[in-house]
């Protein structure tokens, strides 16, 4: 562009040349855009397409892009080939329990860290921050031993308790609570408002966006989690959907990819729906988290 303008500014040839370059750039961008969409959506398209094929069609070479005759029956088969409803219920129970307990533990802790001064505050907040860095993949073995001793393996407790609070959400919410104008809180206190009332009437409404962010991130993480339900349970009693669906791949007669992909679609649909409705907020939430 620069070169073009230097060579022939004002002349008809220069104008024409610039137009050509601009056109080429435009086309180039479109090609790249289409490639990006293909690269990131094709796998999902393939999942959907395979979920509607017959077993024979999944094994033909070269594979067909679209199913010749969509097999909606595959979804019913996926639903019945594993205790799908049972896994689904477990996923819903665990996710809701984690969300509820986090609300009860995260909000008070964030409030206290933000609004009170007390001895040992720095140390306690330090412990909270350090925990953010401890992945579940590091502590599952000692926790399995501990939960076995408590007798809560294969109960909801083992899946819910460790996630009953979130150091990360405490950190995020405290940042927001710190922005509350001091005068407002003091005025409320002078009016004789109780702490609970101050939290519910002042802090929670102000932190709505952060609360939604925390809830969304926790919901996605809990619903998607495969590792914890896999390692902390030994049977199907409380196992969640991702573990249930993934267990379908281990069939002796080879993997029935059409049924597996149908189950995978069903597993992904809740998150896909949430994402399509809240993609703007989710993207903002992650950008906001990364900013902290």
């Amino acid at each position: 562009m620069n070169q073009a303008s230097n060579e022939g500014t004002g002349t008809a040839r220069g104008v024409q040349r610039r137009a050509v370059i601009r056109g080429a750039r435009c086309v180039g961008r479109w090609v790249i855009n289409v490639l990006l969409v293909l690269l990131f959506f094709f796998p999902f398209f393939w999942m959907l397409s395979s979920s509607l094929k017959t077993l024979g069609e999944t094994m033909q070479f070269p594979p067909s892009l679209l199913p010749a005759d969509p097999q909606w029956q595959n979804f019913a088969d996926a639903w019945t080939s594993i205790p799908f409803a049972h896994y689904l219920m477990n996923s819903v129970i665990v996710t809701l329990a984690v969300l509820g307990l986090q609300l009860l533990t995260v909000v008070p802790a964030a409030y206290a860290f933000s609004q009170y001064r007390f001895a040992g505050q720095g140390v306690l907040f330090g412990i909270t921050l350090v925990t953010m860095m401890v992945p579940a993949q590091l502590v599952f073995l000692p926790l399995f031993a501990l939960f076995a001793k408590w007798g809560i393996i294969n109960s909801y407790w083992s899946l819910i308790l460790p996630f009953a609070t979130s150091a990360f959400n405490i950190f995020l919410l405290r940042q927001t609570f710190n922005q509350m104008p001091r005068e407002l809180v003091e005025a409320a206190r002078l009016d004789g408002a109780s702490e609970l009332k101050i939290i519910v009437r002042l802090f929670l409404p102000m932190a709505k966006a952060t609360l939604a962010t925390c809830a969304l991130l926790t919901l996605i993480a809990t619903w998607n989690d495969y590792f914890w339900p896999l390692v902390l349970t030994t049977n199907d009693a409380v196992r969640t959907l991702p573990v249930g669906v993934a267990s379908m791949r281990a069939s002796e007669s080879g993997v029935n990819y059409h049924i597996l992909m149908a189950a995978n679609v069903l597993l992904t649909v809740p998150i896909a729906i949430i994402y399509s409705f809240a993609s703007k907020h989710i993207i903002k939430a992650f950008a906001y988290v990364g900013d902290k």
Partner: protein
Amino acid sequence: MPLANKAARGGDGIGEASLATKPTLVVSAGRRRAASFLALIKPYVVIAPALIVLVVFWIYPIFDMAYLSLFKWDLISPEMVWVGLENFQNLFADAQFWQTLANTLAYTFFVVLIGVGMGLVTAIYLRKNTKTNGFLQAVVFSPYVVSLASVSLLWMWIMNKDYGPLNSILAAFGISGVDWLGDPNVALPALIAISVWKTVGYDSLILVSALRGIPHHLYEAARLDHADGWTTFRKITLPLISPTLFFLVVVDVIASLKVFETIQIMTLGGPQNATNTLVFSLYQYGFQFNKVGYAAAIGMVLLVLIGIFAVAYFKLLANRVHYR
């Protein structure tokens, strides 16, 4: 903080009393003492539920793992045999462990390098705030919100050597495909590619917001100085986004060090141990080979690796909090 300030100001009576009671009430000394005791322990009571959960389920297990690494134990029998550092000696003498460690480090290095690199290129490409870019951002980000289990099942099917679309696409270009997950030379790079596909959206998203945060007048000044694109990038863009780049490197390193799902679902550490990683072998030794002490020793190695990057993260966090 308001409370602390009030106390520091020496208390004008009204502010102090309002902590616990209404200022207009005349309260007895005893009641006031009880109230101030309540005010003293209140923060701890309020924090307790969260902190107990964090300490019992996330801090204590680390110490417990260090303790377990000194024993021989099968997780089931009541008897634990003290062996001291024998687990570590065995671990460091085991060639398979070194390969597992090398796999983990190679995986982490390439996922972070390619992921952040591609994230940066994508971010620069999508940095302008337009409708198309917003849509593309959502597209590139979408794999990030999907469960790793789903992604693993999906790519296992795509990379199927006989019927998967990847090899047929290559065949259409006259390239003969490979057994992506069954060839020891290709399996680890294949897992790296999947991880990059999943996380590049996140990296680019964070970098786009960093790029948009760069003050526009800096670029205008560069244009006035006739700086070319590359110089502008090197002298203005890169220094200003380097804290974000560093943040992403640390976050991605910790995420890569704990890789498990793709391996457990797609390769089980094979072929020929080519995709075995620290977390997967920790899982195998703990739950399949019933060597808990040995597994805990592997866990300690992982702890050290994560610890190094966690320290880096907190240094960074402290700096950012300081400068903002």
